[in-house]
């Protein structure tokens, strides 16, 4: 039997796609697919772009009419369940499905594994039955024989000599990254102050509300899959590969999806299983992971143990920065955290060494801002501790080492970098002068502190993203793109860009997305969606607008340059009384007319990144160790904001998730069994209503005219990146001792308070 290939390291694909990946021609202006320079509208010209537009599909969501993968049912549909290994390390001896298949109502079964098992939860076999309960009953009848082997789930134990070996060869530790710039040793000698600190992050589970799931249905050789995914195109390609069928025979659909945060970027093993069971049974098959499975089988943010060493002159000038990171992503390679260390601050001498440690746990997956989020706990924690050591304002220290070029001011210039504006705006909103000038100076049982942390992330978007705008003879307008709305408001931003360009209202525009047959778009991850899709839609809409203006100029007997599209009309700019309704104008269209748009390239002569800063105010009870976050101000430079309403929501989400990881979230493993001990929402604590501080989302509103035809960057990751570090730094400002490990549980806070060394 051909076995389902394991889903290796979703991060690799994600990291590849998230990076700036234009062919980066040396052109100085962005171009559409036609090669003509795209016009740059002035902000004042816009009616919708940059303003607050409620979601065009809001009614569907609030009435329960929005259909998620969980909600789908088809005639004759079966329900699949996966039998998972209870052992963290074992040799699979045999699987016997006979009794399970004999249970009435069980229609298909599969063996999913042979050879070595490496983590608790690894899929072993699967069945499809007439109900979920019947499928569960069948799982209990599958006979599996294991030869149990020793396992290791703690990274420090896995590094010890004689530890059980996780990979088949090569040992538990591999070098994952190596970067050198200048001479760090020389830099440390030039320093007046040298500090070395170790910061640790934990395994943070995505825990989307809609658990991973799919429905697979065959029609002859053609496969249709409804999937709870962030990437319909990737799932299509992944399924075609796994099933060895042409990609053109696979269609992947996703109307609505209940959260992913990086854990739904590629095809899931469960999706391939559903497709194979559906083929075998000749009926549609639905698979829905339980909350428990979702907690330990579909990834998490890998941990990072970062030893940071920094050298600085008395005036705060950085002379050297080194990082030794040990990252752990279970059986996966996890994340590299180097980029913020190498790029964020002006520093000539940098050395970075990163290792990955393998343990017997499921592989980590990309988690909202992979690498950068972990990095900031260490880098920005160190900036606060260094500022205290130097007796400097931490904000001043950051400005002192401001990098206008990438690679820590040694590479190419950033096209735009609004971080200074973000710092100024944020400091004013939080009341930066209220902080403890010396960390911990406040005293008392309940102490207040204010901290800050910065952010960098590509967010440039993907050249080659396609979108179509279609005009119909009935006057209706449609926009199509093979992207997906993962809750960020993609439908709405597509509608409002078309509406803006054609003089319509957003609700006039029919939006189609979430279908792999539509024009290509990248994954919705890595802050790629808006800077990829919006410019492609804009390009298509501009072409449609040109067509409509030409048509109107003929009807009205005016030059095309005099025609403006607004208020659902084509009108003369010089004499607005000369006008024609767009609906009437469209009657001159002989057939539906598609206009193809493409997100063009951007110049290689500049570096493109998003920037931002968050400030937080916290209260720490020194008797209980409990941290309460009172306020967070988040200011981000993401180029032009397309829809301020949904953009603000994304910032609230990033801040909330970061705070949650800073204080609560940790996947806890049991050394004895190798299993996760808190695979639910009760024991895996996530921030909820009573934990939420006041959050102030702000934007620098700096249009990057070189980047694309709307000057817009991505926003998904930026607000998550500094959001844990800023809480840690505010706690530091309150206590005078940095906890240096997240989540900052009361026990860790109390332990840090007892620490005598490394105080300012």
């Amino acid at each position, binding site marked *: 039997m051909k076995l389902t290939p394991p889903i290796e390291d979703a991060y690799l694909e994600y990291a590849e796609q998230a990076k700036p990946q234009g062919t980066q021609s040396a052109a100085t202006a962005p171009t559409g697919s036609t090669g003509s320079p795209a016009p740059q509208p002035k902000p004042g010209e816009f009616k919708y772009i940059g303003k607050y537009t*409620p*979601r065009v599909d*809001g*009614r569907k*969501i*609030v*009435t*329960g*009419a*929005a*259909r*998620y993968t*969980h*909600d789908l*049912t088809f005639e004759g549909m079966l329900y699949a369940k996966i039998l998972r290994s209870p052992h963290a390390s074992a040799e699979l001896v045999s699987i016997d499905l006979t009794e399970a298949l004999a249970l009435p109502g069980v229609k298909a079964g599969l063996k999913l594994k042979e050879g070595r098992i490496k983590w608790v939860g690894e899929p072993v076999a699967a069945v499809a039955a007439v109900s979920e309960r019947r499928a569960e*009953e069948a799982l209990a009848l599958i006979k599996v024989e294991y030869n149990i082997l020793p396992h290791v789930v703690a990274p420090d134990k896995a590094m010890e000599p004689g530890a059980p070996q996780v990979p088949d060869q090569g040992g538990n530790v591999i070098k994952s990254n190596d970067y050198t710039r200048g001479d760090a040793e020389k830099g440390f000698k030039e320093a007046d102050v040298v500090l070395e600190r170790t910061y640790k992050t934990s395994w943070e589970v995505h*825990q*989307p*509300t*809609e*658990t991973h799931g799919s429905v697979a249905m065959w029609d002859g050789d053609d496969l249709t899959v409804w999937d709870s995914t962030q990437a319909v195109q990737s799932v299509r390609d992944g399924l075609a590969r796994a099933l060895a069928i042409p990609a053109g025979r696979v269609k992947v659909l996703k109307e*609505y*999806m*209940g*959260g992913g*945060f990086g854990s739904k970027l590629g095809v899931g093993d469960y999706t391939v299983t559903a497709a194979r069971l559906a083929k075998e049974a000749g009926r549609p098959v639905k698979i*829905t992971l*339980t*909350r428990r499975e979702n907690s330990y089988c579909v990834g998490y943010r890998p941990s990072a143990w970062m030893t940071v060493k920094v050298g600085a002159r008395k005036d705060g000038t950085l002379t050297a920065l080194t990082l030794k990171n040990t990252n752990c992503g279970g059986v996966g390679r996890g994340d590299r955290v180097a980029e913020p260390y190498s790029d964020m601050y002006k520093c000539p001498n940098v050395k970075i060494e990163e290792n990955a440690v393998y343990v017997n746990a499921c592989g980590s997956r990309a988690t909202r801002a992979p690498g950068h989020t972990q990095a900031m706990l260490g880098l920005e924690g160190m900036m606060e501790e260094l500022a205290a050591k130097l007796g400097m304002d931490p904000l001043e220290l950051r400005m002192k080492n401001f990098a206008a070029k990438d690679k820590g001011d040694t590479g190419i210039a950033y096209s735009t970098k609004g971080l200074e504006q973000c710092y100024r705006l944020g400091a004013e909103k939080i009341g930066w002068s209220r902080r403890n000038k010396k960390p911990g100076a406040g005293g008392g049982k309940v102490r207040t502190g204010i901290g800050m942390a910065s952010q960098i992330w590509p967010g440039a978007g993907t050249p080659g993203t396609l979108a179509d705008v279609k005009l119909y003879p009935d006057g209706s307008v449609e926009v199509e793109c093979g992207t997906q709305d*993962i*809750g*960020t*408001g993609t439908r709405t931003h597509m509608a409002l860009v078309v509406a803006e360009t054609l003089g319509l209202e957003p609700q006039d525009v029919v939006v189609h997305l979430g279908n792999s047959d539509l024009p290509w778009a990248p994954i919705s991850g890595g802050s790629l969606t808006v800077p990829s899709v919006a410019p492609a839609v804009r390009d298509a809409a501009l072409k449609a607008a040109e067509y409509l203006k030409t048509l109107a100029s003929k009807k009205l007997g005016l030059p095309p340059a005099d025609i403006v599209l607004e208020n659902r009309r084509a009108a003369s700019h010089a004499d607005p009384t000369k006008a024609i309704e767009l609906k009437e104008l469209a009657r001159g269209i002989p057939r539906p007319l598609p206009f193809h748009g493409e997100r063009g390239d951007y110049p290689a002569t500049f570096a493109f990144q998003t920037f931002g800063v968050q400030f937080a105010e916290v209260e720490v009870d020194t008797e209980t160790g409990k941290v309460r976050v009172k306020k967070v101000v988040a200011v981000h430079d993401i180029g032009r904001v397309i829809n301020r*309403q*949904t953009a*603000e*929501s*994304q910032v*609230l*989400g*990033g*801040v*909330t*998730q970061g705070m*949650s990881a800073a204080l609560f979230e940790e996947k806890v493993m049991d050394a004895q069994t190798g299993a996760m001990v808190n695979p*639910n*929402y*009760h024991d895996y604590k*996530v*921030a*909820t*209503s*009573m934990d*939420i501080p*006041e*959050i102030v989302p702000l934007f620098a509103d700096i249009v990057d005219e070189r980047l694309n035809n709307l000057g817009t960057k991505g926003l998904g990751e930026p607000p998550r990146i500094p959001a844990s570090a800023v809480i840690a730094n505010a706690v530091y400002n309150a206590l005078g001792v940095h906890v240096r490990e997240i989540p900052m549980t009361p026990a860790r806070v109390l332990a840090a308070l007892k620490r005598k060394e490394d105080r300012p």
Partner: protein
Amino acid sequence: MENLRKKKKPVSRRAFLQSMGGGAVGAGVVSRVLGKESLSVQAGPGDMEIVSSGTLSLSVNGKKLKVTAEAGETLLEVLREKLRLTGAKRVCNRGECGGCTVLLNGKPVYACHTLALQADGAEVLTVEGLADGDKLHPVQQAFIDKDGYQCGFCTPGFIMASVGLLKKNAKPTFDEIRAGLAGNLCRCGNYQKIYAAVGAAADVLGRT
């Protein structure tokens, strides 16, 4: 199959809760697995008859219905799988997140934690039944206006919890809104806008 309505002494919610305490529901599930219809078990001080399935009458979104349910079946399963009302979501399926919140006789309950048979004779309101025809309930409209959602998966639960809160407390303070929604989890982290939506809805309801 037994019909609860025909029993001399219908099993009350209280009896069910007591039976849960006695582990009888587990026995009911066992009986179902074994293919038996019902059995008697020792449940506390005296014998009581435990049903493994029954027909319940209830009103869902104003419509009177009769539904067959097994003893271990939850209200959420009946709503989603038998009535195809998929607004209430299965998120944690163990009473930890509020994604399945519906109103049972006007009060918010976790449908995943409510046995279907407990809803016998009750009025159930789900998010699908909240609007008055095309006219959205003020809470629904406020969630749109204030962007009180991101992925929208927790939204039906939040909306029903908010409606329940405003029924009990028409003019909640900010802290009362926070506390009132403490049983619901939004992983996208949009709480602040949800609070704003509930506040706005309270204003609208207060004016009408």
